[in-house]
């Protein structure tokens, strides 16, 4: 039986309300508008016969007399493990790359149940990205969830694109939320060369707000399918603040009581249920999540970055065009740094310690203090470190990164000045290696 209704009682923001029977929570509906167009909507509240739906394409132009048909199913993603790769979809899972609809696709549930914690395993493998500030200093680990905390204007999308191109992963799923159209085109063009392993779900800033809310679920539902089929999937999301803002918009339209700066009380749970999709499945694939979170006003205590920080396993700070080595942290790096090369952890620590010392010298210098000869070495070291390692354009394998680290140290310091244990110096110090 088709359930069609033709009278909408209320339209507030992206939410419409009408009277209907036999409707289930979360059910999908199609709205046919006067001008012959159609859009989907999802049930977000039931109260007696009063049904509230969030309209994916927004409520602009929706008439109280438009036809609403309930489809008797939940929101789904058309999935096909072969035909999804290389394609671009919008937040509702419709192709937007002017290519035909998917062939042989199977509809799958989005926002599915969470992974049983007793079946999780301790992460143990690193993901090489070719970027020294990640691989060497804050290693990304398979199944990790890490945000990139940044502010508007920083090259976070460029960073994501580089990671998408360089990272070791079988499948890359990119979810764009509130993207400027230029950024969308940028991603499309940048990732054209690795089409065979990339899927894009894109919501641009001009698209309806409800579609923005669906992007992470779509991206993660696809990722979950590949992961359970044995693929290592890297999910890149940008920008999660836009996602949170779209939730705020719908919550306000629903007259929900806001908790903190207008965000709904379930912000933490909503973010967590997405981030917790990151998983390493024993004997199968994995999902790793890197998500840009822009901090309004560069304020890390803003509800979005703050809640994110409690959920994720560390964070990268992208500041001044580089990944800041001090605030950034990969909580899982200890799990893998021991397995890469024996000099990895001590070298990393020594380089950071010296860079920190250099930073202090710079501050003193700027205050007019005189600098000693050792301080001069520190300053020279810092600038070489910045140009040869911190620059995001650098693309090296981990082994090359480590060798470069030793080379830079040797350019400016004596063995003793590095305070690295003698045994390691004997093996890895450039002069000793040559001998």
């Amino acid at each position, binding site marked *: 039986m088709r359930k069609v209704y033709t009278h909408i009682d209320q339209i507030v923001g992206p939410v419409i309300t009408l009277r209907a029977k036999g409707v289930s929570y979360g059910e999908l509906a199609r709205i046919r508008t006067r001008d012959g167009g159609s859009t989907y909507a999802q049930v977000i509240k*039931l109260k007696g016969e009063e049904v509230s739906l969030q309209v994916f394409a927004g409520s602009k132009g929706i008439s109280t007399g438009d036809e609403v048909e309930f489809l008797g199913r939940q929101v789904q993603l058309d999935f096909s493990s072969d035909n999804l790769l290389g394609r671009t979809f919008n937040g509702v899972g419709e192709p937007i790359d002017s290519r035909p609809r998917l062939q042989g696709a199977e509809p799958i549930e989005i926002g599915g*149940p969470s*992974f049983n914690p*007793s079946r999780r395993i301790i992460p143990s493998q690193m993901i090489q990205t070719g970027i020294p500030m990640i691989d060497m200093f804050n290693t990304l680990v398979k199944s990790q969830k890490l945000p990139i905390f940044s502010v508007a204007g920083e090259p976070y999308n460029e960073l994501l694109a580089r990671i998408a191109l360089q990272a070791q992963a079988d499948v890359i799923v990119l979810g764009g939320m509130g993207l400027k159209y230029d950024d969308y085109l940028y991603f499309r063009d940048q990732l054209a060369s690795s089409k065979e392993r990339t899927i894009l779900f894109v919501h641009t800033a001009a698209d309806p707000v409800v579609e923005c809310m669906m992007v992470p679920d779509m991206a993660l539902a696809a990722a979950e399918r590949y992961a359970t089929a044995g693929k290592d999937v890297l999910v890149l999301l940008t920008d999660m603040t836009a996602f949170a803002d779209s939730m705020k918009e719908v919550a306000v339209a629903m007259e929900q009581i806001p908790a903190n700066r207008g965000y709904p009380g379930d912000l933490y749970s909503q973010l967590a249920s997405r981030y917790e999709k990151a998983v390493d499945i024993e004997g199968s694939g994995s999902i790793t999540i890197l998500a840009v979170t822009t901090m309004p006003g560069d304020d890390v205590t803003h509800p979005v970055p703050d809640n994110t920080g409690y959920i994720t396993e560390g964070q990268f700070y992208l500041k001044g065009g580089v990944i800041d080595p001090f605030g950034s942290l990969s909580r899982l790096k200890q799990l893998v740094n021991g397995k890469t090369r024996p000099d990895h952890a001590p070298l990393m620590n020594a380089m950071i310690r010296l860079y920190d010392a250099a930073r202090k010298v710079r501050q003193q210098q700027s205050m007019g203090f005189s600098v000693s000869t050792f301080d001069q070495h520190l300053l020279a070291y810092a600038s070489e470190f910045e140009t040869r390692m911190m620059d995001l354009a650098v693309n090296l394998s981990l082994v090359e990164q480590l060798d470069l680290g030793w080379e830079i140290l040797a350019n400016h310091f004596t063995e003793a000045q590095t305070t690295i244990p003698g045994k390691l110096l004997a093996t890895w110090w450039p002069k000793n290696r040559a001998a």
Partner: protein
Amino acid sequence: MSTSSGHVQGVSGNMVTVAFSGDVRMNEVAFITLPDLGGEAVRLKAEALRLKAEVIRIRSGECDMQVFEDTRGIEVGAEVSFTGQLLAIELGPGLLSSTYDGLGNPLEALANRCGFFLQRGVYLPTLDRQRTWAWQPIARLGQRLSAGHALGTVPEAMFTHRIMVPFGIIGQVEVIDVAPPGDLTVDATVATVRVLATGEVRALTMVQEWPVKRPVSCYAERLLPSKPMTTRTRIVDAFFPVAEGGTACVPGPFGSGKTVFQQSVSRYAEADIVIIAACGERAGEVVETLREFPELIDPRTGRSLMERTIIICNTSSMPVAAREASVYTAITLAEYYRQMGLRALLLADSTSRWAQALREMSGRLEEIPGEEAFPAYLGSLIAAFYERANIVRLEDPNLGPSQGSVTTIGTVSPAGGNFEEPVTQSTLAVVGCFLGLTYARSYAKRFPAISPSESWSKYLERLRPALDAAYFPGWVDLVNRLQRLYIAGQKVGDQMKVVGEDDLAQADFERYLAAEFLDSVFMQQNAFSEVDSSPSNERTALLLKLTAQVVDHDFGFRSKDQARETFTELTATVRDWNLAAEGSEDYRTLLEKVHSRLNASAAARAA
């Protein structure tokens, strides 16, 4: 009890409104039948999908319920059957070493049944029905017993697990039959009793159910906490001790080391039973405990740590209503083992996530919000939760008197790292010990990042006799003196930031160095070192004495540089000593080095 039924009237997020006929109890459990749209029930080989929910508000023929599952697919008009029972958990042997979700579903068994993902509507018994236990009767025929009295025991791990008269029985029962010793499953009848008040005859098994939101209170009396709950984290045990049967709150911003501290306590604390409630936190953290504990041997018992541990795991992506229930489930388990005369330690991580679950529900109920939209009753719920921690005297007619305790340590994740927020403040009002983790310390890599100036413990004075006995006479006085010395040194440090080192008096500068020394060698501790992570009481006593000796010593420094050099050297030596295993060559030589350094300066002064 007759049970009622009803029909769904509305759905909003995880809240469902139901019109009912008959009577409905507050906090009663009900099941909502789901139309099988996607074939979920077929996949799970169930007749119909039924979602568990709890009544949280009743008004004029309708009740609001929080659903412990994803509510997608619920229709208006869907059938609801009320159980007449409050949200309860099964208690009995076999709880130890297990991992449950917030409602007491065993996660391992769920995985065996449903695979990698948690499917909604699947509820499994908390206790294993197949496993047998060596039953040993205690109660005698004709004996009159009350709730909480032992009927018999079974061995569980290294404990004698008491099978007790159910806590819910009112008045006395007369034992009319007891099963002989033997290997029994939990469902076997172990005793038959007549309830004197009603004359009802009841067959009792090893299993009883207890409503989680109600404290278990069948004990003789509540006692004043007077013994320390040793955590093996030095700064806590010495400066901010937690009492057995007491409460502590550990707030900290993200990245300040809450998890590491919590894990360290779960490993080394001197409790019999450790219950970890992973409430709304990362699943990854639980996994480390899950995978590592079975391999770790508890040096005190020689058995794996997992054998004394229960994990209640309702992580952040699991349903939020079950998260709300999870802390209650956890504390009920702690109370159950307390009733056997054991020391249970509950680690609740994080109570903020629990409070957020309350806030989400309160928002759905459209209640008038309090501060930061938390419900107005947040404070009283937090207080009631922490008040369930206690140390009690138990009287058993057959087993004699004993003491049992529940100690609760709850972490708080304050938004923005700001301790002024409602959850931290409500918690501080009711706990006996505050261990504040700060960014300032964690950025400076001073771990554990428990702030020595902001933290406090009301137990230090109360535990004075026990602490002086555990360490050495005068321990508490020394701790107090060092605490004052630390604060004084900190003040100098702050002053130094403004005026610079040069303008500081020599004596002030030395005071500063002494405080830094105390911080570096005693308050800081390496949680990842096998030796330093869990020093014995003797070693901690020795270290505190040594620290006092150094800071009290009159070195007679002539310059600040000289003082700094000496303290740097001493700090390095003592820190190395902290990492040296007892009885090792390093242990001896490093200790000697400190003493000879002190003697040398004494000799120099004498000369």
